[in-house]
């Protein structure tokens, strides 16, 4: 499905645009989360074969003919791990933002210019 792969790339572009042009720190973290969602959509759309079904061998899919009726299961495995790790990294970034805001009382990233703590 080329449409879904193109949609994933458009989401990545919107995320990069948001990260580069916004000054509010929460909007930057939000852009990062959008980039993650776009990458996962691209990865799952690569493993899809037209006309086949999910990789679960119950009454709907015959065990002997499973090679011709099943979608690639390996990209789903990689994306499953990546979604959970994306949540952990987003939570860690938000905790950094909270700590920075407590120090200087400002949510704009232009006020946190110098490097000393």
């Amino acid at each position, binding site marked *: *499905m080329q*449409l*879904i792969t193109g*949609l994933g790339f*458009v*989401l990545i572009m*919107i*995320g990069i*645009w*948001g990260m580069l042009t*916004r000054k*509010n720190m*929460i*909007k930057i*973290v*939000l*852009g990062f*989360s*959008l980039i993650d*969602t776009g990458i*996962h*959509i691209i990865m*799952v*759309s690569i*493993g*899809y074969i037209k006309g*086949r*079904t*999910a990789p*679960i061998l119950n009454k709907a899919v015959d065990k002997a003919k499973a090679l011709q009726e099943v*979608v690639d299961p390996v*990209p*789903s495995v990689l*994306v*499953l791990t990546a*979604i*959970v790790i994306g*949540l952990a990294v*987003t*939570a860690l970034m*938000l*905790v950094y*933002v*909270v700590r920075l*805001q*407590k120090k200087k*009382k*400002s*949510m*704009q990233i232009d006020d946190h210019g110098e490097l000393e703590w």
Partner: protein
Amino acid sequence: MELVILVVISLVMIAAAIMAIYSKNLISAIISAGVVSLLASIIYLLLAAPDVAMTEAAIGSGLTTVVFLYALNKMRKSGEDG
């Protein structure tokens, strides 16, 4: 028929992503990001990957929104800015 559903979902998803970046109110931006994750979960169902759809629906539009709202609450309480 499936192409029509895909086109509609793609347009709504791109509109929600643009609203998440451009909106001035922070709470609308956070909820728009949750809507993007929800529509991505429907696309995973159309791509025959039910495990990924369940995980994305639970984590992307559930826990990520809650974590963002908790962080926003902590920042609003300690200093009135933004």
